[in-house]
């Protein structure tokens, strides 16, 4: 038996319960494949995403973090994703200002009916992160697996 030593990125996807999480389900039941490196975390709304969660994900060894929410105007709670949009724009800009590659963070709007878009988004994001390689700028040495 050979051990696969090829480096695989770790990607955290925060998905809104009302749209992208169901979109991921649809991608699965439509038998569309997306990389197994994507770990999905369900949140009740895209605006539930505290900026601290993103930093935490990077601390624990994530190489890329993506937030998926309802299209603007379609939020289950009417306006949550509008707030998330502003917050994430500012946070990503700040991370970029601190020298962290802004391609490691992304926001995509994926509805419950967009299974193919979910799979395509994840494939594209995983490809980008694989090209960028391991995240060394925002990791925590103590959380590193040996």
């Amino acid at each position: 038996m050979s051990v696969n030593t090829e480096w695989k990125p770790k990607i955290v996807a925060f998905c809104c319960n009302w749209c992208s999480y169901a979109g991921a389900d649809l991608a699965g039941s439509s038998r569309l494949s997306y990389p197994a490196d994507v770990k999905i975390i369900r949140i009740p709304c895209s605006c539930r995403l505290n900026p601290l969660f993103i930093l935490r994900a990077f601390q624990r060894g994530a190489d890329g973090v993506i937030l998926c929410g309802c299209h603007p105007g379609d939020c289950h709670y009417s306006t949550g994703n509008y707030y998330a949009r502003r917050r994430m724009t500012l946070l990503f800009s700040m991370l970029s200002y601190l020298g962290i590659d802004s391609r490691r963070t992304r926001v995509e709007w994926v509805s419950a009916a967009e299974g193919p878009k979910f799979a395509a988004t994840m494939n594209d994001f995983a490809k980008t992160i694989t090209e960028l390689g391991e995240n060394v700028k925002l990791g925590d040495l103590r959380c590193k697996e040996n």
Partner: protein
Amino acid sequence: MQRELIDRIRALMDEGVATRVLGWKKGEFFYDTEPAILTAEQLDQLVYDSFCGPNLSKYLIQEMPKLEGKIIALIKPCDSYSFNQLCTEHRVDREKVYVIGVGCKGKIDVDKLRARGITGITAIDEDGDTLTVHTLYGDETVNRHEVLLNKCLTCKGKEHRVFDEQIGESEDTSAGADRFDMVKKLEAMTAQERFEFWRGELSKCIRCNACRNVCPACSCVKCVFDNPNTGVQNKAAADDFEENMFHIIRAFHVAGRCTDCGECSRVCPQGIPLHLLNRKFIADIDDLYGEYQAGEEIGQRHPVINYTQEDCEPSVVRERGNQA
């Protein structure tokens, strides 16, 4: 001006407007001016000179529950923004404060004097723009504008945004400087250069929490950094990540509410330019969501708790380029 101020406060106290005043008094040395709450008997300790840099607005929060009547607060033009912001956030009750808008012609940074090799300072005489510094080793003359606090170099102007009465003249000390100069310079660097710049700065952090404690926007009753479950509770940072995280989260928490008073950088014992993080948020907000100055009026709704349907997408950060 100090004499005039004390006389006026005494008159106000005699009229029964308030029983206490929030102002400054001398610390260990005459240039170590510190915030103080004084009663009528202690009024002679009050000082108002070129070393009254500290922003007093935040000290009003702890006074609010203790107050029966009013408190007199001395507010400089730049501090009036913080005062308004705290009123907006209902941390300070405008009705309970009698605001004396004190004039300000820029405050002096004693560290800048020391950096010029002037030590053993015993007294300073001011004559217009010329400072005569008396030291143990003789007298030195310095131009006042060369030793102003950094925050005074990007002065927000001489207009008090809030006051019940004004005493003294103010003077804009910014001399046309662009407060976003350094932010622009950093933005023009490559990501790697920026990363190295910030590693160099933030790795000096000793997590003394002075920036948090002095910040008028950091006024939460329960702070995330006091929560032992965060793993970043008040303690020295054990890893690069913690330094980054503390400062990113702190800057993010005050985004939109930061009045750019510059206190964080002034108090930092390690000289980290923390205001550059806050200014980046201000620059982004101005750029993406329209010009906004926190604390301009009481009751503003700041851009981070607001939205429009036409807001830009977060991908704008990538599209700006210069990220890799």
